[in-house]
């Protein structure tokens, strides 16, 4: 059963750029990006949900874990799609010059582009842009299955920099190495309300309370949860997915229903803990609105050479 998503391409089922030539005659529309599963063939035929393990509950005392803690730990973080989600170790300088550090989450949106929250790359508390960000794909405790890469260039929006507008709190980390070619990247889309409201979304990232806030390993495990979008505005998505500090920048992506085989499609960038909405307490994300989509697409293209499909199409 395939869900119809008007603004999303068919996902690539083979690894890497295999199959690229067969789609070379198609002109890529401007309103979507195409996900890439990466080159690792071991993913094929694996059902991601089988890889999940049930998590233990928490005290639920903090508001961004809404009610009972239903989060689930991802153990196979070296597998698709979890390996495309990255732990971030962010360094900056406070206005007084002292060093400051943060933990966050990001996700691969292109070969060299990791999308995250704007406040993970820029903030007054860190004296402007972060001085350095370590990007660790698929981190799992002490295991770094793909090593880590440091930020090369950071990007965010003028409206986040100048006005701290939450609706524009998204950004990107441009990497010097095209790790997405091997690990894959998420498709991104800006579907209309009817395709997101009351639909299940997943948020997967690196919460700082796992395995516990007082553990040496805090923030090194990937956890996810699925729940519906309870409210949408043109620029925000509100959902009852359980999250915690450290998951800023995590992908908010449409969840597959039982038996569905679509690849994940990111529709928001998780950024904020719970706030009261007309639909109740909910966590929220800047929404991938059409203009946001264009900005992210521009960031991807800024640092990524055109894939073979586009090069061939241009020549013809």
């Amino acid at each position, binding site marked *: 059963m395939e869900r119809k998503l008007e603004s999303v391409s068919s996902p690539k089922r083979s690894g890497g750029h295999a199959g690229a030539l067969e789609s070379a005659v198609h002109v890529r529309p401007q309103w979507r990006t195409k996900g890439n599963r990466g080159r690792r063939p071991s993913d094929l035929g694996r059902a991601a949900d089988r890889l999940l393990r049930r998590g233990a509950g*928490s*005290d639920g*005392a*903090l*508001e*961004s874990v809404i009610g009972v803690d239903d989060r689930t730990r991802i153990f196979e973080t070296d597998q698709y799609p979890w390996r495309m989600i990255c732990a971030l170790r*962010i360094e900056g300088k*406070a*206005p*007084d010059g*002292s*060093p*400051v*550090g*943060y*933990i*966050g989450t990001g996700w691969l949106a292109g070969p060299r582009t990791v999308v995250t*929250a704007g*406040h*993970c790359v820029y*903030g*007054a*508390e860190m004296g402007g842009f972060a001085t350095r960000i370590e990007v660790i794909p698929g981190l799992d405790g002490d295991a770094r299955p793909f090593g880590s890469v440091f930020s090369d260039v950071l990007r965010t929006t003028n409206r986040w920099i100048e*006005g*701290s507008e*939450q609706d524009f*709190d998204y950004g990107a980390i441009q990497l010097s190495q095209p790790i997405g070619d091997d690990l894959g990247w998420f498709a991104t889309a800006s579907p209309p309300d009817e395709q997101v409201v009351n639909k299940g979304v997943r948020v997967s990232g690196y919460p*700082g*309370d796992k395995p*516990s*806030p*007082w*553990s*040496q390993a*805090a*923030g090194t495990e990937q956890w996810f949860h699925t729940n519906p979008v309870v409210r949408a505005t043109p620029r925000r998505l509100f959902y009852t997915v359980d*999250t*915690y*500090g*450290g*998951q*800023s920048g995590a992908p908010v992506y449409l969840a597959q229903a039982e038996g569905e085989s679509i690849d994940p499609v990111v529709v928001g960038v*998780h*950024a*904020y*803990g*719970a*706030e*009261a909405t007309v639909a109740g*307490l909910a*966590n*929220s994300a800047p929404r991938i609105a059409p203009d946001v989509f264009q900005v992210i697409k521009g960031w991807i293209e800024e640092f990524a050479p055109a894939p073979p499909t586009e090069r061939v199409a241009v020549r013809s």
Partner: protein
Amino acid sequence: VTTGGARPRLVRTVDEQGAPVPSALLFVTSSEVALPEVGRRTDAAGKTVVLLRAGRYRLRAGAPGLEGTVDVVLDDAAPETLTVVLRAAGRGSPAGR
């Protein structure tokens, strides 16, 4: 420095003897204000700066073997420095399990 009505607050993480706890992870939550969901690391002196406007907040911090939680109500007269005392994990803290 103010940003959208928020003021910088110095947050210190200390142990029960008042000694700084460096590299503690700090989480700030609120039921009134949507806050960025980052985890903050205190520096070598157990300090970090958080921009907060007036309101009610929970500050929860953890370091290996230690944890602490404090609920604060901030207004314009509130002190610029907030302190989270960390105790042995699972003992003597509202958030301990």
